[in-house]
């Protein structure tokens, strides 16, 4: 969840950037997660599209997100090469689980069981 407080002394651009970084680092935004379009997020948060676009550019420059042409912006995998591969695999598993309509709790249970073997 993103919150922009217009009364805060921190500029909206910085509020947005810091919240995205926090969510990527905490795993709330997982690797491969799609971000809203610039226009959509600007409309939702009442910001100028340029503000959101600048935020996305800086996040991309710092390696937190990546832009895949017209497909949009996605959260990049973080950490070393092994951690990045694991995050990509986790995203692929999550996408497949969503396709199959399986409950997240069941999916997590199976992953835990598989990891214990």
């Amino acid at each position, binding site marked *: *969840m*993103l919150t922009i407080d*217009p*009364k805060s002394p921190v500029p909206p651009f910085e509020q947005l950037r810091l919240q995205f970084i926090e969510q990527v680092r905490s795993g709330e935004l997982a690797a491969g997660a*799609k971000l809203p379009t610039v226009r959509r997020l600007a409309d939702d948060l009442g910001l100028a599209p340029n503000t959101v676009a600048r935020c996305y550019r800086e996040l991309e420059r710092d390696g937190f997100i990546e832009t895949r042409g017209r497909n949009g912006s996605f959260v990049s995998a973080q950490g070393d090469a092994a951690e990045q591969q694991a995050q990509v695999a986790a995203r692929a598993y999550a996408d497949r689980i969503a396709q199959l309509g399986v409950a997240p709790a069941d999916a997590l249970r199976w992953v835990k069981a598989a990891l214990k073997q």
Partner: protein
Amino acid sequence: MDSAIWYFSILIAIVFAVGLALTFVPVFAKWSAYRHSVLIRLDLPSRLQPAVSARLMTSGRGAIAGGLVFTILGLVALSLDVGASDNTRSALFFLLGTAIAGGTVGTTVAALTGSRTIPSDQPRVARSNVATVADYVFPLERIGTRVLVVLAVAVTIVIAVIDAGGLVSAAVFFAVLAAVTLVLFEIAGRRVVDRSQPAGSTGELVWDDALRALILRDMLIAPLTLSSFSLILGVAHLLGGDSGPDSLVSVFPTFIALAVTFYSRASRPQRYFITRLWPKLRWSDTADTVTDAA
């Protein structure tokens, strides 16, 4: 036209008139909002209730207006001997089908018009990831409707191949209408989800999601109902000759439709968006104090 058709038209007009009048009654609007709150087990803060009631009533008015317009168009078509007017029963189904399709069109138009604004000095809350139609509509309803529409179209194609004279029948009409309203859902549904969600608190965002889920599920009523009608009539026509809807074979699609409906209801599809978009949400999480603090 048969007098039964006129009686049925008058009945539909009365239902629409009463429904439309109710949307202008503040007590009914308030009751609808709280009823929906209980149904999805989501607290409705008193400060959000007027906005939620207003949006529910706008959607209701859209559905009723759409149903009314399409019913009138259906009556005009019947009076001109266009459409499924081969017998009185089919004509009644025809009118019911047009009313249901009109309701979906009206709901869609109401959902895609109008905009919400938040004062610029208020905090704004937004989702950091992307939601899709699949996050709002229970898979059984979303995929089940597609399956039913494909089956209905397949049956009508078989009818057309076997019996070209039966082309202008209620089954074909319903199948075409079901396919059109399904395409409408697939296109307009994405546009509904892509619309911006200006929200000043988490509670507002949750309730916007709740209303979106309700609208999207309402948009599925027409393809679901019409394809069921088409299957009932089509299978009856194929297996029972001219026995029409009275045929025993029509019991099977009806039974399947009822079973799907019961299973869908038991799965609480109205709460599906919460499990997808707000998995950690509790009843009290949208209460005034919590959301204001957030």
